[in-house]
């Protein structure tokens, strides 16, 4: 302490303030300060103050020093000393930090939750004073028609599962705006790392209805060669990474890919989707932390739809949703109305620019509601009220809200609506029929792609399998092409 005093006159001033002896001690007499220090009984009054849990310690300390020493300092003067006095800042590893004598805990929950960006009201009317990214007619109509297509696809495939024609399906009912509007704001070069409730992004990019059907019905034309369950779509051509069942593993993948894009100096970013449940995984923490440290151009889009299968968000986390976690990692974040397609479009559009030009990650939390069941393996009426589901389905439907907006611009009509809906329904039914009748994947597809080039043991296994099928054809299904 003595050495420090010699080096820094500012520190001397600080000590003088603490002892309330500002006017009384001059730098030349600092040696006497230490002896002064010993004269005053320090321990007893402090103990008294600490013993009282209700004590406002800073006030007590002020009064205490005022009482201890002869001079008295009004509080106003002390504050100004604080501000002017930059002894109160220390350059710790990690940067400068300002000290405070007030013991304050950061509250576990804010007084007001982070606000939610929306530009269309419940009736699809533009809210006055909204800052909005303009969407032209062509784009808006494509957005709307893709939302209808997604809705219709979900309905028909869900029914197909219920009829036993496919084994599994999961819908995006209630989240059509997130699916389509985010895709609309991205470019074809942006790499998408989906969870599993984002087929709309693939739809937007040009994956055909037939291709969707082929994957669900697992036929020879399936791009996935029959390797995965339904809804595990993937397409290299569309920069949409194959859906993987494990939750949140795609988050660090997206950061790695974003880093690669940055190294290649591409004018593109990585985009990854996850739900409120996925944000609890360790991978979420690692991905956001890394993205900030690596300065990776990645957009994290959280579909906070209130439910992780049967777990409501109140059992998932106690933070103010997912958006507040961004700042904990040094990631710029925004909360958006997930049922407002225009707001989502605007937020993603802005995020895209920031991510690429500033080399930074962005976190977007889209608040919405999972109207459908988690999947065909779930009956959500078992853990939530039917009234709740119905309310969200009718009052907050993103598709209806957007329809009202484009109709108010005279870009759409009810004739167009019924025409389009019946047309897309026909196309989907046709695609399903074709997919169902098509041949199943060949036996050779069991053994390829395990490695880049099949090793000898797999060649042998394939030979053995074909031999066995040839010898015992009755033990094998007739629709297995050899």
């Amino acid at each position, binding site marked *: 302490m003595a050495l420090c005093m010699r080096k820094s006159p500012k520190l001397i001033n600080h000590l003088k303030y603490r002892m309330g002896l500002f006017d009384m001690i001059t730098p030349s007499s600092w040696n006497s300060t230490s002896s002064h220090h010993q004269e005053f009984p320090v321990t007893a009054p402090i103990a008294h103050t600490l013993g009282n849990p209700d004590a406002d310690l800073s006030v007590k300390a002020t009064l205490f020093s005022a009482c201890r020493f002869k001079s008295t300092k009004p509080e106003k003067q002390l504050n100004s000393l604080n501000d002017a006095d930059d002894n109160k800042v220390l350059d710790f590893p990690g940067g400068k930090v300002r000290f405070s004598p007030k013991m304050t805990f950061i509250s576990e929950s804010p007084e007001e939750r982070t606000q939610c960006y929306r530009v269309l009201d419940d009736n699809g009317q533009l809210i006055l004073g909204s800052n909005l990214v303009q969407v032209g007619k062509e784009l808006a109509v494509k957005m709307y028609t893709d939302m209808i297509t997604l809705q219709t696809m979900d309905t028909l495939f869900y029914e197909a599962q219920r009829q036993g024609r496919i084994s599994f399906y999961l819908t995006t009912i209630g989240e059509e705006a997130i699916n389509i509007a985010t895709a609309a704001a991205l470019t074809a070069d942006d790499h998408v790392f989906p969870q599993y409730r984002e087929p709309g992004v693939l739809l937007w990019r040009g994956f055909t209805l037939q291709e969707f059907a082929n994957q669900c019905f697992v036929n020879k034309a399936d*791009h996935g060669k029959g390797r995965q369950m339904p809804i595990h779509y993937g397409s290299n051509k569309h920069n949409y990474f194959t859906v993987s069942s494990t939750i949140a593993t795609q988050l660090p993948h997206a950061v*790695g890919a*974003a880093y690669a894009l940055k190294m290649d100096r591409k004018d593109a970013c990585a985009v990854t989707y996850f739900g409120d449940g996925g944000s609890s995984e360790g991978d979420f923490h690692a991905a956001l932390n890394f993205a900030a440290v690596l300065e990776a151009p990645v957009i994290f889009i959280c579909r906070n739809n209130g439910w992780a299968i049967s777990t409501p968000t109140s059992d998932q986390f106690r933070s103010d949703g997912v958006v507040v976690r961004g700042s904990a990692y040094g990631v710029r974040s925004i909360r958006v109305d997930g049922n407002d397609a225009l707001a989502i479009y605007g937020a993603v559009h802005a995020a895209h620019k920031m991510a690429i030009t500033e080399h930074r990650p962005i976190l977007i939390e889209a608040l919405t509601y999972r109207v459908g069941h988690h999947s065909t393996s779930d009956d959500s009426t078992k853990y939530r009220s039917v009234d709740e589901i119905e309310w969200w389905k009718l009052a907050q439907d993103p598709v209806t809200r957007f329809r009202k907006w484009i109709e108010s611009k005279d870009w759409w009509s009810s004739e167009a609506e019924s025409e389009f809906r019946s047309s897309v329904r026909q196309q989907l039914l046709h695609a399903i029929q074709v997919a169902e009748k098509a041949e199943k994947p060949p036996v050779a597809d069991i053994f390829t792609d395990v490695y880049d080039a099949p090793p000898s043991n797999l060649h042998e296994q394939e030979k053995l399998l074909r031999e066995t099928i040839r010898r015992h054809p009755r033990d094998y299904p007739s629709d297995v092409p050899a």
Partner: protein
Amino acid sequence: MLGIIRQKVGAGGASLLRTRSAVSALRSYSSAGKEMTVRDALNSALDEEMSADPKVFLMGEEVGEYQGAYKISKGLLEKYGPERVLDTPITEAGFTGIGVGAAYHGLRPVVEFMTFNFSMQAIDHIINSAAKSNYMSAGQISVPIVFRGPNGAAAGVGAQHSHCYASWYASCPGLKVLTPYSSEDARGLLKAAIRDPDPVVFLENELLYGESFPVSAEVLDSSFCLPIGKAKIEREGKDVTITAFSKMVGYALKAAEILAKEGISAEVINLRTIRPLDRSTINASVRKTNRLITVEEGFPQHGVGAEICTSVVEESFGYLDAPVERITGADVPMPYAANLERLAVPQVEDIVRAAKRACYRSVPMAAAA
């Protein structure tokens, strides 16, 4: 540091040269009898592959500024910069996932685990993201990633730092698993791993890092590469086959020396690759010697030896003159006390005794009980 250098200078000029990077040191050696430590072999392989392909980058804890927890990546940060040698936060799950993501996009990451014990925190990404992606995506997503680091027992590091993961990773289709022994193995196999389009688990050994092995001019060439899936016959013999990998190869060779003095000619196979296992070399050898001992440091159940034994029973049963014996680590988490640790891992004497049992030179263990 200076004190050490002064001592080395006193010992002779050649020792001083070793303190520099492997490549420059070797250039100043005279022609015959070059030696290289496994550490330098790995370092030079990484250096050469990073130099040849700008997509190769190294990532892990302490690989940059610290020069590598075991100094394997010494000098690389200085040479290639922080964009290609990344010091990561402490999250194996995180950086493994990020490495896989980078590989999905077309980069060629080399992910270092401080030890493979810590890879347990990332095993989901290794198995579910790396190993299976090419298959699940029907060939659309390839993952040219290398996971490397020390594996198995070191000395006095206890249960959570001594586990051998060879059989864990080797059971998973989609992965390739390599286990180098000598410096030649280290160089050739690491280069092959980095160039391979599939995910490779590269299991090194901490105690081998400091060991020196002779290397030929061919091995030192920057295009040198060893084939994955091919075992090496380190020592030819005719009476009994001993398979081993990593550090146990050294033990097996010592055992073979001792056995030779007693008239037993042992053939030692350095597996080099655990997946895909070189079943043809192993079986060809057993068909010649008719007896087999497998040696590994890891736990016995579902271990590498179990797989080798099954392969031989499936393909060469008629050729066996004695039951196959596996020498493995004890079926307990590794104890720390030095005397207990010694008892928990295979020793040269264990291999010698097993070979003798296979050759009916001593009473079988079951009969003696």
